[in-house]
């Protein structure tokens, strides 16, 4: 059993139980033990970084310090959380002055960031602790005909120097993990570009225009579904298609699935257990292709 402190974040419990359910079930099945720590706050993602970077770094460092106290590495489901925590972790490790500055702030709360624990995205955990071979062995339902457009999102890959997740221009990790399930990862134009999600709430029209490009390109390339790693990307692209219908009069009906959902399905978990009715775009098309 490999143990990790789970950093759940805000959006997943508040909006996307299907993500959490599929993640907890599939990771448990693969021998990953997730520990829920007491007292974790928001990771301090870009919206808070926009308000005050120093506060954001301090909050990320605070959350990491909780894992340090529990002597556990952190795993995140949300790419946004991954980015905030991994940037803070690596930046503060590299920059002693900044670390000192942040620790001075944390000392007000009796906490200290040491930098002796890792922050991992769950894809990295799958690759490192489970491994492609072991994963393949556990696949009971091959996603044989399924053409999956993988979408890394921005904050798994960039800024690459601090995230160290994968080659930012030629990432493979996600595609390899999709193909390990027996599905086909397909190429589509602007695959590595943003979904626009972070502009929702400030400039919804622009956010939608960007999301539309994403959905259009994946559809054009013949995808059966688009797979995400992040609740924000999911929301933007899933709910977004409803808005595209009303704004652009375009209907795509491209199912958006979190990778953990694809994983759960291929590990033989019953779709009824996965709270799939939280999807705005029905996933029946996908289910019918794989069962």
């Amino acid at each position: 059993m490999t143990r990790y402190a789970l950093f759940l974040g805000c959006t997943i419990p508040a909006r996307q139980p299907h993500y959490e359910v599929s993640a907890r079930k599939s990771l448990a099945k693969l021998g990953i033990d997730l520990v829920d720590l007491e007292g974790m706050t928001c990771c301090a993602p870009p919206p808070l970084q926009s308000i005050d970077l120093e506060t954001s770094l301090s909050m990320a460092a605070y959350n990491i310090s909780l894992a340090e106290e529990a002597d556990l590495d952190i795993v995140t489901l949300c790419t946004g959380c991954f980015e905030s925590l991994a940037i803070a972790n690596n930046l503060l490790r590299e920059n002693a002055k900044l670390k000192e500055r942040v620790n001075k702030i944390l000392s007000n709360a009796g906490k200290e960031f040491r930098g002796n624990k890792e922050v991992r995205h769950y894809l990295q955990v799958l690759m490192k602790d489970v491994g492609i071979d072991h994963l393949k062995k556990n696949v009971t339902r091959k996603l044989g005909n399924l053409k999956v457009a993988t979408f890394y999102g921005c904050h798994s890959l960039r800024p690459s120097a601090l995230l160290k997740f994968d080659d930012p221009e030629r990432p493979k990790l996600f595609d390899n993990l999709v193909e390990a399930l027996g599905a086909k990862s397909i190429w589509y134009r602007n695959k590595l570009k943003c979904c626009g999600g972070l502009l929702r709430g400030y400039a919804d029209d622009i956010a939608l225009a960007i999301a539309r490009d994403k959905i259009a390109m994946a559809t054009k390339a013949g995808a059966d579904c688009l797979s995400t790693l992040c609740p924000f990307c999911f929301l933007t692209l899933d709910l977004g298609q409803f808005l595209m219908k009303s704004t652009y009069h375009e209907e795509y009906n491209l199912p958006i699935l979190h990778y953990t959902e694809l994983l759960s399905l291929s590990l033989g978990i019953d779709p009824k257990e996965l709270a799939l009715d939280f999807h705005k775009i029905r996933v029946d098309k996908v289910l019918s292709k794989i069962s």
Partner: protein
Amino acid sequence: MDEPKVGVFLSEGGNQSSKVLDYDALASFAKNVAKVVLVERAKEFWRGDGLKAIVNAVKTKKLNRVVVAERLPKLSEVNIVKAVEKAGLNPFLVEVIDLEDHCARPHRNKPAEATAKAKAMLLAAIERAKLLEPLEKLEFPALKSILVIGGGIAGMQTAEDLAELGFEVQLVEKEPFLGGLASRAGRFFPTDDCAICIQAPSTDVKSITHTSRKCVYRSGFTEIQNLNVLTNSKITAVEGVPGNYRVTIEKKPRYVDEQKCIRCNLCAEVCPVEVPDDYNVKLKKRKAIYINIPEVYPPVYVIDEKACKFHECEKCVKVCPTKAVELDQKTEKKTLNVGAIVVATGFEEYDPSVIKEYHYGEYPDVVTNLQLARMIDCFGPTGGSIIRPSTREPAKRIVFVQCVGSRDRRWNPWCSSICCMISLKNAMLVKSADPETDVTICYIDIRTTGREHEYYYERARDMGIKFVKGRPTEIAHDPEDNTLIVDVEDAVSRKFLELEADLVVLATSMVPTQGTKELASMLGIELEQDGFFKEYNAKLRPTETKRKGIFLCGGATFPKDAPTSSLHAHSAALKAAKFLSTGKIVKDQKTAVIDDEYCGDCEFCPVTCPYGAISLVQKGEDHFVAQVSELQCEGCGICVGTCPLNAIELRHYRPSQMLAQMKALMSVNGTSKPLILAICCSECGHTAVDSSGMAMLEYPANVRVMKVPCTGILQIHQILEAFKAGAQGVMVVGCKTDGCHYEVGSPKAKKKVELAKMLLKEYGIEPERLEMFNLVYIEGDKFAEVAQTMTEKLEKMSPLQLSSS
């Protein structure tokens, strides 16, 4: 050494000295100093009657030390020293000081204080002179032969110059053929003539005169006497000293007899092995036995060892009509003895495949400027037509991308300086071959700094070549119609463009050739941060290195166009010729000496010496001592400052000489202010003092200047001694830390001063009593300013009382 007999010569010239200084007092003061046997006064001593007076005094009074106070020592000293030498005295026993710019002018409003300071200065000069030792003039033999490394445009021209000047020249080229990168450029800018002449051998020496042709190489390059060309060869070891290097060369086998090959091409026709042709940047394939182009030197086929199947095949052996193919040739080792080495290893195109967003190496229709140049060349892989490598169809829409890997801090931060012109040239050649071709250049800035270059840019616009001001974020490929899409913002029109292209040409950065690092370490010369060879001084010694006898030219120091490479090549040839012209190297003995008894073979000095003049030699079973090469030593003294055991001294700046000088400078005050010793390096530091005097700037007379070769010579205990000698403050004045004339001296001194400050604190002495200042020659105003502020600072402190113990 005889008992010192010092003659003191006081020049009263100068518009301030005579008005400010009391020369009667100075003369009688000097007369009373021990060992002074003569004091003379005159208007000037550095020429005419004054100079005769010195010579006469040296002869008649049997002087063996000469102290002269004269204006502008940097000019006058040379004359005085020469004259003294003619009079029969060792020229190193002369000390010249400047009472005008260092005393009378800056202190002109306090004549009494100035005279007191002048006394101290005179005394210091006399005390130092007494301790000076005669030094010899050294001569070292030098071979009149030269190795030129690299047979490109620069190396070939240097080699030619030197051979024609009568030196034995060995030209070593690592490739099987001469010509280098420039010969593959198709055409040259801005002359638009062909590049091929660089690699071509002479055709008819008699009918071609040097002045009638643009390409001197063709004018009988291979027929030049004293010039030996070694292709397919590389340097594997360099030993010896300037004037006498022993260089080991490994000459790879050609597997074809140079005398027998008649270039009939039958071998290549039967050869079954095809490999990508590096000469044409993999745009076509060639056989394992090949020649780059028909007109090339040496005009002999060569076998690619990595590709040939040798005895398994032997088809070429069987077909060769002259039995020229010899598959059993072996690598030859050669030793060359040369007096000097010229490095002309050039530069090469950066491999842009690391810039993944441009997909070079992945999309076949993304090529580099060199690849395009090969296509433009009628001897090239496409016979002169511009095609898309993916389909071999003509390329009708071409987009150039500038600054690929250049001006990019992720890869190479420098501007490669020639790529704008290369792209303009290639774009125009493409456009003039087929005016229908759509050509766009995406640029950040267009740099056309050379003569005629801006006309090039004008002509390109005139021809209808389009310019987009923006650096593309990526090159995409649409598999449906096999089109490349260049994603770029035109900042001028604020438009986002998706330029469709059949061919995208990357103007890649230019980087040092492979093997540059290894060669530099063999030669013991330095590289700049960018990886190119570092010149001695970019302003005045652009083709020399800090190692005597090793010269640089062409693209080895930075990317250059053909005209600049040529200039550089001729300059290097002249420098190398000057170095070896007399067959000997003459040099003075202002060098470091090592006391074997004290040397602890710690390796500090060999590592620190900027000239590589110190090495460790075995003395006894496991005992090594440092040894100074008098030939290479420049007498800066940085080793002295580095040695933890005080085992090194400079012959012309012994600690005893410096101490005597220090004590003398502090012996007379004459002002009410605290005495300050300003230890100035002989380069920027001391000349900054000169320039402050010349500019008639004032500072208080309590500031006393002592010259050292470089501030790097300073040892911490010397600073303490200065305080002990009576200084209330010490200023160390050196060159800028990045402009030290001995490279590392001034930054080292800066660190040492920091250390000494800590030590002073330990002793309970205010660390502010010691400061380092880094000035350049023209910063006389700064010197005056810091001398003033330092004095004011010290005046606020209570006097320093050091026990005489």
